[in-house]
């Protein structure tokens, strides 16, 4: 069982370039998320999806777009990369909330992006 797989794991971009990060999960989870992690800032939610064909903004959505065309895939796009987007990006997936329980997140291994 692969769990959550992110590609690529490392990428260096120049300011203004575009790229897409791909996240794939094989656990049949409804929910998928994209977080960024910066030193001392914890995990901040960029965008999330509660099901195929749906997406919503998180805490820090500016400069990013997402798509969830298939249930198992969640793509994060940077249209015009900026140095402020240098970060480690984590994709995660989970089951929907059940009563007072919130689904535990299963994280991918992360994608380290540097924007020069």
């Amino acid at each position, binding site marked *: 069982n692969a769990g959550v797989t992110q590609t690529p794991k490392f990428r260096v971009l120049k300011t203004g370039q575009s790229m897409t990060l791909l996240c794939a999960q094989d656990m049949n989870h409804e*929910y998928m*998320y994209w*977080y960024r992690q910066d030193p*001392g*800032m*914890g*995990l*901040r*939610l960029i965008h*999330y999806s*509660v099901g195929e064909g749906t997406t*919503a903004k*998180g*805490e820090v959505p500016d400069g990013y777009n997402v798509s969830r065309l298939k249930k198992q895939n969640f793509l994060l796009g940077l249209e015009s990369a900026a140095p402020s987007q240098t970060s480690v990006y*984590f994709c995660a997936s*989970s089951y*929907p*909330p059940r009563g*007072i*329980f*919130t*689904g*535990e*997140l*299963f*994280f*991918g*291994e*992360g994608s380290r992006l540097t924007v020069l």
Partner: protein
Amino acid sequence: GQQVMQIPQYQHVQEGEDFTTYCNSSTTLSNIQWYKQRPGGHPVFLIQLVKSGEVKKQKRLTFQFGEAKKNSSLHITATQTTDVGTYFCAGPFYMNYGGSQGNLIFGKGTKLSVKP
């Protein structure tokens, strides 16, 4: 806005000493989750607490959820070098209507280092 705060930000201990990290929410939570992230790794789910005053143990780790369901703690007894990493708490993020869509809001984490 809704916040989850963690203290301390860093903790350095001698192997064998105890360690505690505290998590405080600005709002009452239906549950709280804890994650561990090893250096260079991704966050891994540890536990979810849902009951007021709940205490759960996992070997040397003791998790507590406050009576008011606004705070939580993680205590590690007799730390080992394998405990090194960053510990995050996370609670459900509540939408304006009061419901949760399953998103988690993370604290900034407590980074634990253990000196052999």
